[in-house]
């Protein structure tokens, strides 16, 4: 009996203590005291006091994110954009508390958008906060806005309740075309820290028609060190993705001579190898790309499902891919930015030779001979053998 009493007493004590201590004390974070940030934008603006950072936070209004049945009639926005100014990002983040009753909470932030003028003047002053602070996650996407990030974050999008999440989904599904290169904060950090590989970031722009405004992914921003120096268009971006081995799927459209009709081929699978070599003591890179394709759509009435025509198609597709890569390579040489990571390939696979020419990589890269080998195989033809409407 006494033992039972003692056990009961001890248990009561332990449970009481744990009830009071498990709610947390100094570092407690209650949902109704937090402003959950879904998207965050940084711009450089001129104010009366001089250059300032304009921070834009897209905050989820948790009480407005409602079930689809209710959503129809309400018409209320389920997000809020808040702005603040600061000399540094951190100061700006704390300045939000002047007007926002809740503290900004970053762990659920999905996209970080940087205004173009800020990107052109350099990322170093702003990127540290997102790496150093324990709240922002390394897997959030980073983008450059054509124009101001603040404008992008204030637009309502079609299907998604929260625009920032819509942007996130757009980047996640880049594989449908492979013409957008999604970059996470972690990737960006690595590129900025690398001695030779330069950073690239996807670009997003605001498209205004007379009826409504929408946002659209368009091209890639190219950086030299931390400054944006140029852009790749969407085809050059795919050229970059081929070399980086990030192409998942996508469509290649070309004309098969002598016909004047378009043929769309779908990329099923792509593998790439970068071979850093030394030829006569000079660096030389071979990029080998193996692609598996499927005929997606043909608009001429000839039967192409015969080996001879197939070979022609394969050759044309390979040429199309080479053209994309060459376009990206031309841009890389023009800006002298090694965003393919050829330098790192030499560093990790030819370390001895790298020691001799590595320090001069900036002079070597624009003249670096790059050989591109593409081989395409058409394995499937879809569900039809010929153009379905018979002549």
């Amino acid at each position: 009996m006494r033992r039972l009493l003692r056990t009961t007493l001890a248990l009561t004590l332990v449970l009481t203590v744990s009830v009071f201590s498990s709610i947390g004390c100094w570092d407690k974070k209650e949902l109704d005291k937090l402003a959950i940030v879904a998207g965050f934008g940084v711009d450089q603006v001129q104010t009366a006091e001089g250059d300032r950072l304009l921070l834009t936070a897209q905050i989820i209004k948790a009480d407005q994110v409602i079930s689809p049945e209710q959503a129809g009639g309400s018409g209320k926005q389920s997000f809020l954009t808040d702005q603040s100014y600061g000399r540094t990002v951190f100061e700006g983040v704390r300045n939000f508390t002047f007007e926002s009753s809740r503290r900004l909470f970053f762990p659920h932030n999905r996209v970080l958008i940087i205004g173009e003028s800020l990107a052109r003047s350099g990322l170093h002053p702003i990127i540290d906060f997102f790496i150093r602070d324990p709240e922002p996650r390394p897997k959030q996407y980073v983008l450059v806005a054509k124009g101001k990030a603040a404008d992008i974050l204030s637009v309502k999008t079609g299907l998604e309740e929260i625009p920032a999440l819509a942007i996130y989904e757009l980047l996640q599904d880049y594989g449908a075309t492979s013409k957008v290169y999604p970059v996470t904060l972690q990737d960006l950090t690595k590129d900025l820290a690398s001695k030779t590989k330069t950073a690239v970031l996807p670009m997003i722009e605001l498209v205004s028609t007379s009826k409504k405004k929408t946002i659209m992914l368009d091209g890639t921003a190219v950086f030299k060190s931390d400054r944006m120096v140029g852009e790749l268009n969407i085809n050059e971006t795919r050229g970059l993705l081929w070399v980086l081995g990030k192409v998942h799927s996508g469509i290649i459209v070309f004309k098969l001579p002598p016909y004047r009709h378009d043929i769309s081929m779908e990329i099923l699978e792509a593998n790439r190898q970068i071979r850093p070599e030394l030829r006569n003591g000079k660096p030389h890179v071979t990029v080998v790309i193996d692609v598996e394709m499927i005929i997606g759509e043909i608009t001429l009435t000839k039967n192409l499902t015969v080996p001879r025509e197939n070979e022609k198609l394969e050759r044309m597709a390979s040429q199309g891919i080479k053209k994309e890569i060459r376009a990206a390579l031309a841009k890389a040489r023009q800006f002298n930015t090694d965003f393919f990571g050829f330098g790192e390939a030499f560093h990790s696979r030819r370390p001895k030779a790298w020691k001799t020419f590595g320090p001069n990589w900036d002079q070597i890269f624009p003249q670096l001979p790059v050989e591109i080998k593409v081989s395409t195989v058409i394995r499937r033809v879809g569900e039809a053998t010929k153009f379905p409407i018979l002549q």
Partner: protein
Amino acid sequence: MAELAQGRISNIQLVLLLTGFLLGTSILILPGGDIHPDTWLAFLLGCGQGLILAFIYLALARRFPGQTFVKIAEAVWGRYIGKIVSLAFLWYVFHAGALTTTNFLDFIKVSILPSTPAMLLVLMLVGVCAAAVWSGLEVITRCSEVLVPLTILFTLFLALMLIPDFKAANLQPVLQTPLPELLKTSVRVATFPFGETVIFLMILPFLNKQNKSLSSVVIAFALTVFILITGMLRTLGVLGNVAPLYVYPLYQATRSIDLGHTLTRLEILTSINFLTMGFIKASVQLFAFVVGLSQFLGLKSDRTLVVPAWLLMSLLGLYNLPGVAETIAFTHTVYPFYALPFEVFIPLATLVVAWLRKLPREGQQP
């Protein structure tokens, strides 16, 4: 004497206890400084050097079975010098425990609970260790029986979850570090964590079978170096050139786990690993200090020292280093030299003198 050491520990238990002790802080703060593609080699070399040191400790423990280092020092060096030697040793044990506490505190303050008062955190963290020491060596050992396998499991699980982010190219180029640099790193690894086995001179006497201890130590070292290399490879494979940028690269790498938006935020497992292993390490250090001090002072009961030792270790842990920058600098640059006398000179000199004096003499066996 030594009421805390009641209940003996078996050889399997020694393996787990020593592994937990060695993994203590090194499971979060990778020994040897910045990681680069050759760090694994430095780990292996450091482990080898650590084994040589462990032979010295084991030889000493075998020569004086059932005696802690405090008693051994007194027998070998005589009454007065012996007291000085064991006092120095006890200081090292105590200070190492305080350093473990500091590492605990830094990590929690930086990454988990930034605004909770440090004093409260440190008292609670060391308080758990003190409770374990109060309950005795057997309880600490049994804790390690549960916690060490869990840590191994978590480590492997995390490595598995990081495969999507893993890039083998980050591990190249291999064997490009100059030899002196590699040796320097390996010495750091030998002093922290492997050389810290010297503290087990206070634990080994309570072993069931003394003559099997060598194989236990070798297995524990192998297990530790395996876990460390796994952690190092997966960290470098994920973070690549930015790994040296972070205060806790191992923790940072696990933050990037994101499998289908559901299996994410798994860095908490790294924290759990560190908290559990750090608990074992700090408990062993606190235990060694309490038992050693009570033998040094010739106290009848050593349990009376647990509470004062808890408070003192908390305080030293709180105030001995002003900040994270100093802690990192101390761990990587000062500690290898600071630990040298305690981990190498004192045990080696004691062994040599014992051998020269042909101690322990026949008939004097306790």
